[in-house]
């Protein structure tokens, strides 16, 4: 990105070595201290402690007991529930990320042109961004209600049988995903519109002169131009789906029959729910989460890095 800013030429010479004045004293480090203190206490220390906890037993009161090596990991990976939980986590990511990206791409491409109508629509599609996990979840819980909810009213009007949206293990995960897609769409549309807004007019004009219009213009010209935003969204949406907690907690509490228990929710279940303080097991799961996120971040760096090289 910095290469695209020719205005900072003098900043460039600054960054390449010689400083115009001597500020290499220790005082500038003071400016870093507040942030370092916070990160040390609430990121670095707990990170180390997570590893220690994952290698320790836990007594009934949640106190750390003796060193148990990899036994917690062994228990996690041999737990038949754990495979199901990882599958739920993966399915939830697919159910949320794919529809969110596809829908927001369609919406953003249709709203790309500057006009009053489009400005109104942009605000409409941005509104869900304001809704917290908690607010969105309780609204949808009313919609999902099997006896009085709006969704079953619609299903029955269309001649179907009422669905146990949150009470059947078949529908619960997609139902939570639906809620999540609704919450995420505003953010995604805003990012994509910002990306489309930065596509130079000349590019679009040149494509038009070459006879590209409508679908072809969007598919072959505009979408490739906003690929970096799409990648960014795929990564952030995936990580967000991994982090999802509130909607599961409000809508199903992981049930029915743990069909909506994802990795993060299982950490909560083992660590905190129903006075369970199995911090050893939960910490081993937390390490799994850290590894998964590290892999996703690695993918992000390699793909985005390659994109930048190509341009």
């Amino acid at each position, binding site marked *: 990105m910095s290469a695209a800013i020719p205005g900072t030429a003098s900043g460039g010479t600054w960054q390449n070595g010689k400083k115009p004045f001597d500020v290499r004293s220790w005082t500038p480090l003071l400016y870093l201290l507040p942030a370092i203190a916070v990160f040390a206490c609430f990121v670095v220390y707990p990170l180390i402690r997570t590893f220690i906890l994952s290698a320790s037993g836990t007594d009934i009161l949640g106190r750390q007991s003796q060193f148990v090596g990899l036994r917690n990991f062994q228990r996690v990976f041999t737990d038949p529930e754990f495979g199901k939980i990882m599958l739920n986590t993966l399915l939830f990511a697919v159910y949320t990320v794919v529809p969110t990206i596809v829908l927001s791409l369609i919406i953003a491409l249709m709203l790309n042109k500057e006009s009053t109508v489009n400005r109104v629509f942009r605000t409409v599609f941005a509104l869900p961004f304001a809704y917290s*996990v908690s607010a969105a979840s309780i609204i949808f819980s009313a919609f999902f209600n099997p006896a009085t909810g709006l969704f079953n009213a619609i299903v029955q009007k269309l001649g179907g049988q009422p669905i146990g949206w949150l009470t059947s293990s078949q529908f619960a995960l997609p139902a939570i995903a639906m809620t999540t897609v609704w919450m995420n769409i505003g953010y995604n549309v805003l990012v994509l519109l910002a990306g489309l807004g930065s596509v130079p007019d000349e590019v679009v004009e040149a494509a038009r002169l070459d006879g590209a219009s409508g679908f072809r213009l969007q598919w072959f010209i505009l979408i490739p131009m906003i690929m970096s935003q799409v990648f960014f969204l795929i990564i952030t949406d995936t990580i967000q789906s991994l982090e999802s907690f509130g909607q599961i907690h409000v809508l199903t509490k992981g049930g029915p029959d743990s069909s909506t228990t994802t990795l993060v929710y299982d950490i909560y279940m083992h660590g905190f729910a129903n006075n369970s303080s199995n911090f050893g097991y939960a910490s081993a799961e937390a390490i799994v989460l850290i590894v998964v996120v590290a892999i996703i971040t690695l993918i992000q760096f390699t793909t985005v890095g390659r994109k930048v090289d190509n341009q």
Partner: protein
Amino acid sequence: MSVATTTTIPAKPKAIKSAAAADAKDTKEIRAERAKAKASGFAANFSHARYVASKIFGLLVLVLLGIIVIFPVYYSFAGTLMQQQDIAAYPPAIWPKHGITWSNLATAAQIIPLFRQYVNSFGSTLIITVAQVLTSTLVAYALVVLKVRGASVWFTLFLGTMMILGESVIIPNYLTISSLGLRNTFLALILPYLASGFGIFMMYSFMRQFPMELVEAARIDGASNLRLLWSIVLPLSRPAIASLAIYTFLTHWNGFFWPLLVTETPEMQTIQIGITQLQSPDNFNPGLVMAGAVLAVIPTLLIVILGQRQIVRGLTAGSTK
């Protein structure tokens, strides 16, 4: 006079004549065009019709998607104002058929300590926002402008904190707060969030685009580090600070997992946790639920509507890296 008439009178027929000629030419051209159109068959007409149809179809899709997306927003407000006989009916009413009522809001405020929870949410979010802006600006200033020794190493380390999700270290953080005796306190809500890797990244990216001449000039005038920060860097950073502040406010106003863990009594809970208490499964009251949701989203809704530009700028800072 006669000269005048003789000059003006022939002028008219001439004009008429030329207009007629132009007409004739026009009709000729039109005829030629029609012939051409006939020659290319009905494809031209069809492609035009198809263009119009696709425009209409596109608009229909947009309106349909718009209705679906805005419906929960609309219904949360409409449902809040609906009478029990409307919203608790089956099928539930879509609009307040029997007039509006404020009783849902009033009942919600009775069930949860609404004012107290608003204060908790507002206070903690505000402190977190100010703190993150402050710590991020200080770090970015030291790294970009003051060129702290090992700036790139520090930057990588700060950025690295973004890789560690709050959820993956939530157990030790909970234990830390517990052992400090801070469970169910205001401090517990804010302590882990006083700095953020994303905030640092955002301020850093912004300051890298500074016109460094300004900073250098102030330096030559003998400005101290703090003076430079206060009178040059901060005013220049205002757009980034606005975006970061809005983004941080939205994120932490909407926080759920951490406030749920560290608070126990309704008096210490944030509004986000409070409103979930409005949906009791045995005595389900959708009007009450909608009222709770509306109460929780009013501040953020205002921010999203009024601060869209800042939000978009903040988002692009993250996505164009």
